[in-house]
């Protein structure tokens, strides 16, 4: 596959040569979404990962990314909320289409979300949080549940 015309690529001293550009690690783009589940009435975490050529990553590649904390979190590990160890197991990873975009994604099934978040709120000792403040705290707890399963880098 050659002959692309004036392609004296070796001769163009003004282009940064490929090896330097290539020494950057392989780029994987991870799109992350938070979608409200009308059925379970909780936020749900969706994500998809693809390479620079547009091909999606399969399950094994996603494991290799260490995006998912599946291996490093046995059930009995303590977390920063030192009152009780995290009892919630790794969430139910599923495949499905993004509800609005329609693109294939991975997501954590929301059936256990409410319970898991409630556990954390109970641990903290839920005060009289109302209104927006209460919702913000709920979301904070939601993020901490999520971060036990996903490396969010926040």
């Amino acid at each position, binding site marked *: 596959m050659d002959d*692309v015309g004036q392609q004296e690529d070796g001769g*163009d001293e003004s282009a940064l040569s490929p090896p330097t550009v290539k020494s950057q690690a392989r780029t994987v783009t991870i799109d992350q979404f938070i979608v409200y589940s009308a059925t379970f009435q909780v936020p749900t975490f969706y994500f998809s990962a693809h390479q620079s050529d*547009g091909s999606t990553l399969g399950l094994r590649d996603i494991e290799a990314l260490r995006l998912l904390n599946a291996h490093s979190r046995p059930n009995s590990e303590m977390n920063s909320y030192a009152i009780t160890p995290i009892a919630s197991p790794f969430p139910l990873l599923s495949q499905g289409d993004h509800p609005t975009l329609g693109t294939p994604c991975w997501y954590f099934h929301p059936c256990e979300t409410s319970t898991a978040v409630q556990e954390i709120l109970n641990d903290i000792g839920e005060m009289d949080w109302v209104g927006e403040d209460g919702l913000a705290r709920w979301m904070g707890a939601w993020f901490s549940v999520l971060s036990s399963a996903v490396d969010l880098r926040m």
Partner: protein
Amino acid sequence: MPIIQFAPFSSLINPTFWHTLTQLKIDVLKLSSDSVPITGSYTYGKTVVDRESGKEIALGSNLGLSGESFDAAHTASPHSVTVKGTLKNFNTIEEFKSSDKAALFNALADELWSSDFPEDGNKFLVLTFADLKKYKYYYWCAFPAFVVKPSWEIGEGGWESVGSGGSFGEEDLRTIASREEPNAPFFLVRRNAGGKIETTPLIASAYPGFFTDVPEKDRYVAFIDPSSLPQNPGWPLRNLLTYLVRHSAPYTSTAASPAATSPKPPSFKIISWRDTDVPSEDGGKGWKSLLGRVYLPAAPDLGKTSTEVEKVVRWNAIGWERDGKGKMSPRLADLGGMMDPRRLADQAVDLNLKLMRWRILPALDLERVSRTKCLLLGAGTLGCYVARVLMGWGIRKITLLDSSRVSFSNPVRQPLFEFEDCLEGGKPKAECAAERLTKIFPGVDAQGITLSIPMPGHPIPANEAIVNKTKADVAKLEALIEEHDVVFLLMDSRESRWLPTLIGAAKNKLVLNAALGFDTYLVMRHGGHTPSISTSTSSSEEAAGEKKKLGCYFCNDIVAPADSLSDRTLDQMCTVTRPGLASIAAASAVELMVSTIQHPLGIEAPAPPVEIATGKQSSLDSGDTSHESVLGIVPHQIRGFLAQWRNMIIKGDAYSRCTGCSDIVINEYRSKGFEMLLRAFNESKYLEELTGLDRLYEEGEKALGDVDWIEEEGSGEDF
């Protein structure tokens, strides 16, 4: 001063780009390879900090393509530049390969050269071929940039931060950051007479008018830079510079031939703009944008001028994207993983198993299970259920062996068969079952082999042809057992299990045995024969506590397996059992196999101690869990009694005179091979004599005779 090396664009494609192209091809383009206008986008160069090394890594200078590239009405996201391009999709790989790429490239370069719009300098080309059957997409992007000789150089001091150089104050930079039309790829910056910074997007006719009466030191040309490398500006700068040169006196196309004068070589103050927001750090340190003086060391070589028109022939252009290995070659995107149904099925099954490990049992070694190769002797009720459960565990290699055909009573009890399979005499069970497994899950490697297993007590006729056929069958069975890791004995007779038991013991393969009564069942694993562990035969060694090997199906026999199949009543022949029993026994056999495999000692896993097996003690209390795998205890034998809804966990030691697995028979088999087997099939007393079982009866009788029975009169109350 150093030559500038511009960072080329790298394409960054979103899967939606391929989906939309596929739809477009199917619905609109069909076989047309007309050019399709598309857009791409790039954004400010970014760096990330590597969490492990702490180093800053520059992310690629990316031109992004997505499904929205095909949507003319799509508006750009904030902080990104939209660029126009062309896509040409070929219908066959041959057309893709043989297309005149030079011509296509040059046509685009000509278009760029003759355009008055500076933003056209970013136009790109994508050639594609979509293989919709294999879900593979070949593509090649080109980002034409004009080459000038001599090459552009960077002035003394190189590229310096706009915040620290002294050219701009904090307020100046904020003015630039909050300019109107922040998505314009190129813009001009000047310091006006009052000392204030002013900007305008670089559109046709803005340059050089914007700089009228502005001293040279206060003129800057800026561009949104997709590159984040400290010394390498992005690709868009190349064509921007070309535009600037061609529109600067004395190089403008309407000027007289440059050779007539000695013009000053072009020099520009270029701002590589890389800030999306005003940085939070004070003191000018947070700004990422750079400033540098870009110039040519000598007047550009403009190539030949046409004598007819004083117009300069266009400069050479380069810009085909290199592939992943740095070669001048197209790229391939394989979307099979998300579009090929077989791969989707494979992935879904894999995910399901992994969740078991992630959610409940991290120590489970799934790989070990899935790569276990299983040979199922018998494709009847037990065989069908075993095969199903094996697939549930993700096992990929399943071989079934059976000698009969599907009959009308089979489908209701044997879940791999259907009514149609019974017609016309019935399909061969083994092949039919294997085919059905593949229909259930294409990712399984299922094979069916029709073969009759020779048995002791069923003599082989003395016909040479038949003897040779039997010999070949035995060899085939030996080869099959050798190739697999686990053998399941799922036949409907006792004696047919003898030969595979012996071969399995000789080859130290894990043998799982399941047998059904009317409402009782037996599931067991045969003991291992790993050479390093020897059998002890004397009772004194046993008393010393040395580990005894576990027995096989025949270890408790005092007679050799014989013909149990002739002269049976109908119910004995058809092994009538309670229908639920087969699936219970079969599933238990598979789970016992998996539990054995999970044990660190595998085939040599010890049976659980009696107290634990009988439930008198839990292993947590004893503190010793060496007999357990992550899935729990690994029994030797399980006997189930459906009428009482009860299981018994039993251990049976290996018997030194066993016709199936004792050293005597194994050694004889190893040294004499088929000759020994033939005698076992033909001579009813052979195995008993070989192992000494025949003498056992005599010894028993003799021992009984030796005992002095004390016969006393009276009530016998003294004891």
